[in-house]
């Protein structure tokens, strides 16, 4: 046993194989991350952007953020949005995956193709269409609601933060459900029919079968899609930029992504903007770390 361990340690091949990946990471991510971290401790404004030497200010950018209620509001909003968005995505995605296992092949194929189309749709095209759908004057949504007898006369979905985030949530969920549905569907195909049958014979109803048998079996898939969606929804930017251009630009409509952009590229305060990015990165790492620890635990247990 100990001999094996010693021999393993001496083997260079695994480490050599890691080198290309690490190099790519260092080249692609290293420089921006290092720049970002340095800048977050500097006073870096437009003048520095045009060549004036940057001054070290220690934690001042971070302290400024910690005492800015607007930042806390943005952070809270972002976290709430990513939790609700990711949960909705995983629930709807899993439901669709279960549906796929039950319907005839033709319907399943139709479902899969529609999901793939939503997944493959370029974001600019998708956003343009969604914004048209919710347009206050000629949008299909107001029109259809009108036909149903709900008076939506010129209702502007994008001018109220609540409906704005509702629309954003619908779009973000719509775009990420396909990924979840396919991943979970792949997981479900690995659940053997015998197990399900045995559960049925023991008198488990559909919900019990899912909760007590299927869900634990596909838990690794569910947890990775959940974490990935949390991370994606936390860093969402493009959707919000498009919606803000169509609707409101004020800070009640900001999430972390647009806030970083507004503070940095808009107001020219790159130092503070870098500090927000670092905080966002920290939250992302925390989320991923939770996931990694979970997987390691599972590996050890099995």
């Amino acid at each position, binding site marked *: 046993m100990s001999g094996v361990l010693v021999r393993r340690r001496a083997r260079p091949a695994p480490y050599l194989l890691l080198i290309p990946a690490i190099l790519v990471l260092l080249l692609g991510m290293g420089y921006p991350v290092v720049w970002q971290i340095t800048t977050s401790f500097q006073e870096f404004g437009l*003048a520095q952007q045009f060549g004036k030497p940057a001054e070290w200010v220690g934690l001042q950018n971070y302290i400024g953020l910690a005492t800015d209620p607007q930042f806390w509001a943005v952070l809270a909003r972002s976290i709430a949005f990513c939790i609700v968005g990711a949960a909705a995505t995983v629930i709807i995605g899993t439901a669709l995956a279960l549906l796929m296992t039950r319907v005839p092949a033709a319907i399943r194929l139709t479902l899969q193709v529609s999901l793939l189309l939503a997944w493959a749709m370029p974001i600019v095209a998708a956003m343009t269409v969604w914004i048209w759908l919710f347009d206050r004057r000629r949008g299909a949504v107001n029109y259809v609601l009108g036909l149903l007898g709900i008076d939506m006369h010129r209702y502007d979905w994008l001018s109220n933060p609540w409906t704005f985030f509702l629309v954003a949530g619908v779009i973000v969920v719509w775009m990420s459900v396909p990924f979840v549905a396919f991943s979970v569907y792949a997981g479900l195909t690995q659940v053997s029919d015998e197990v399900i049958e045995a559960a049925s014979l023991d008198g488990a109803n559909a919900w019990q079968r899912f909760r007590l048998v299927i869900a634990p079996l596909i838990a690794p898939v569910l947890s990775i899609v959940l974490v990935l969606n949390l991370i994606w929804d936390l860093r969402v930017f493009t959707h919000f930029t498009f919606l803000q251009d169509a609707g*409101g*630009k004020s*800070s009640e409509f900001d999430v972390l992504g647009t806030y970083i952009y507004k503070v940095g*590229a808009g*107001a020219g305060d790159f130092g503070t903007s870098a500090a927000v990015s670092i905080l966002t990165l920290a939250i992302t790492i925390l989320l991923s770390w939770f996931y990694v620890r979970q997987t390691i635990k599972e590996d050890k247990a099995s």
Partner: protein
Amino acid sequence: MKKRTISGTVAATAAVAMLALAGCSTTPAPAPTPTAAGPEDITFWLIGGDTPQALRDYLVDQYEEVNGGTLTIEEQGWGDVLTKLQTQLPDAANTPDVTEIGNTWSPTFTSVGAFSDITDLVPELGGDSLLPSFVEVGEVDGKNYALPYYFGSRYNFYRKDLYAAAGVEVPKTLGEFAENAAKLTTPELSGFYIGGSDWRNGISWIFAYGGDLAKNEGGTWKSTLSDPKSIEGLEALQDLYTTSSHAPVTEFDSTPWVNINDNEATGQPEAATIIAPGWAHWSIGDLTPDPADATKTVATWNDDVFGTFVLPGVDGGVAPVFAGGSNIGISAASTHQAGARDLLRIIFSPEYQQMLGENGLGPANLDYTSSLGDDQFAKALAESAAGSKLTPAAPGWAAVEGSGLLEEFFGKVNGGGDIAALAAEYDAKIDELING
């Protein structure tokens, strides 16, 4: 971001460096019109669609003739150009060689050294005849970095048919303007269509009541939204928006002319009055399908239906509106300084200045203002420009605009917020940015 161009080729860098040196060595002498630097391919950023195609073509042709190189004109949107300028101007590989820049952003960019010193070129480009207020915002320590490109001004367009039907006349005072707007308003029609977050037009009310956005106290700029006069203007605006505009409270950068033209679906306009930059008149009128492109329409001005008037002041006369317009400068990071200077010579040539005026854009060189003609648009432009005001020439003003604080503030005011509390809150926020 959305559109990124790499001007110039990498291979040419060495050659360019030599050309730039050659360019420097020739500048001290009062240079004869075209420089001897040789052909250079340059990029010129125009912002928005104000410069008509004919003028763009003229620039490209002339540049080729004078310099021998190719001029590429790239149109940027007003919405995101500020962020692009911040990130691309300092970067030699991505910078436009010459760029139009919002006049109100000039102090910020000139004070951080974004533009080349063109003081030596000024006499040749028009000297003292150039629009002084615009020259000033592009000046640091007596040196010129950005010069006026064109000026515009904002005035009102209205529907004569609707005014007649409602029995209202062109208003003489700002109070009358608001009364009329309220009278014209129906659930389907805005008596005066203005976006709730449209601060560029909204500030006219602050100005009209004698207020201002900021003042310079011994070298330090302070936001003055809480000034009693500013508050008075904001109250009038809030009242006007609430009673007479159906535009969303979040609308900030609108194309109001689509609302004064007949709506294609209903055949009715949605606004009886709008305020817009003068060149908007090209987009206002009876709509007919564009013969060149079936998906578009062309507007033909119809004097029976449409009219213009300048925004009246509180006690009559003319209200001070936001002085629109642009400056122009050579990027300090550009490796094609000589070519960029050639382009400026073309832009400030009598021919081009004349063309600007003929197209309804106030020429930078005031010797050519007669080119604007004497139709109603030219008269309204001249009349409203006379009283117009610039935003504060503070070094941090571009950051104030870029932060979106003004849209936010006006949106909250027009959304029915407590003006005094909001003004105090946003004064504090703006003060953090305005001094750069």
